[in-house]
């Protein structure tokens, strides 16, 4: 009986000390981590609209299967310059999160893979060869590459782009003007 109690006590102490250490390190680093994430995200927004000027953004959570967030981007004077849609899709190789920028002229300004657990080399292939092809396309007639060498990742990207453009057309595009 005493042996079992001792075993349990040892486990409780190890888990307690471990939890205490992790809690404290988390307290020390969480602000810095949050700042890193925000700065990375803001860099993506600036890259999507190809601007070095400071931008402002407002996030809205969406109730869509693939698109989780709509981010309204405004310049320093408060004029809307476009929208960014953040979507996530799961394929056989994991998750892939994509940001799609659409200007108020109904053009896709840029598509960026912001995070993914898909095979890095295939993702890099898409970044190098395929994502740029989306830039400048009209949202009503987006064409997709037929051969990419990264079928699963590209299919996920295509589906997210499709959902984002569809959502934009239905809610923000010229059709709603």
């Amino acid at each position, binding site marked *: 009986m005493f*042996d079992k109690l*001792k*075993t349990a006590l*040892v*486990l409780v102490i*190890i*888990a307690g*000390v*471990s939890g205490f*250490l*992790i809690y404290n*390190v*988390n307290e020390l*680093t969480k602000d*810095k*981590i949050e700042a*890193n994430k925000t700065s*990375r995200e803001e860099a993506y927004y600036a890259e999507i609209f190809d601007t070095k000027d400071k931008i402002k953004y407002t996030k809205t959570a969406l109730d869509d299967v693939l698109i989780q967030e709509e981010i309204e981007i405004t310049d320093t004077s408060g004029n809307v310059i476009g929208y960014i849609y953040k979507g996530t899709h799961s394929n056989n190789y994991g998750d892939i999160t994509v940001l799609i920028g659409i200007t108020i002229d109904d053009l896709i300004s840029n598509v960026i893979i912001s*995070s993914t*657990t898909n095979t*890095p*080399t295939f993702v890099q292939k898409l970044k190098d060869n395929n994502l740029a092809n989306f830039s400048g396309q009209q949202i009503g007639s987006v064409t997709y590459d037929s051969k990419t060498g990264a079928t699963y990742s590209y299919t996920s990207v295509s589906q997210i782009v499709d959902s984002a453009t569809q959502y934009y057309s239905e809610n923000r595009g010229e059709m709603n003007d």
Partner: protein
Amino acid sequence: MTKKENFLKGLIKENPIFVFLLGMCPALAVTSTFETALGMGILVIFVLTGSNFVVSLVRKYIPHEIRTPSYIVIIATFVTIVEMITEAYTYDLYIALGIFIPLIVVNCLILGRAESFASKNKVIDSVIDGIGMALGFTIALITIGVLRELLATGTIQYGVYLPFFVEEPISLIKLFPKKFGLTMFSLPPGAFIALGIILAISQFRKVRNAEKKAKEKKAFIEQKKKEALERKRQAKMQKAGDNK
């Protein structure tokens, strides 16, 4: 075993990757560039040294039947701490290493050293063993990373993921333009091929050294035999002379 021998054994003689083939998952997955290999190596140095220290410190208080889960909790704590610090201070490296940081928990090298060394030895020796083994692991990762990056891109870059000492990425070595690189070496098959090449070279050296030693031993035995025969012959001759 002296402290120096304890430290040095992990570098070459008992190198975790090239000799024991331990921790192959990061050795293949994060060695596409020199910098990611170095980054993973630094994290492993911290985790292995820390876990060896704690395991050795509490070795007398952990009941035998729960030692493995206890060691895993200790290792997981260090890995979580390392993950948070990496995410806070070297965010690019955190993104580049991705899932392979949490996977350090199941790196058999770390649990292996906890089980086979730290749980049976004093704190100082365990820490020295941890540093030595982790340095050996890091050297092996860097060797694979350098070979792969050089063959794939012709250059060795620093400053892309690790923000220390440089403001902007720099090329440490430049052998040939990127367009002549063998891209395959940055892909998973390239990792296996690069590791295979290095293991073959290391095995070749080992076998050659063993053969050399065997040859020297054989020559030494032959020499001793000759000397013994000579002594015997001289003794015989001396005996024959005495009889005359």
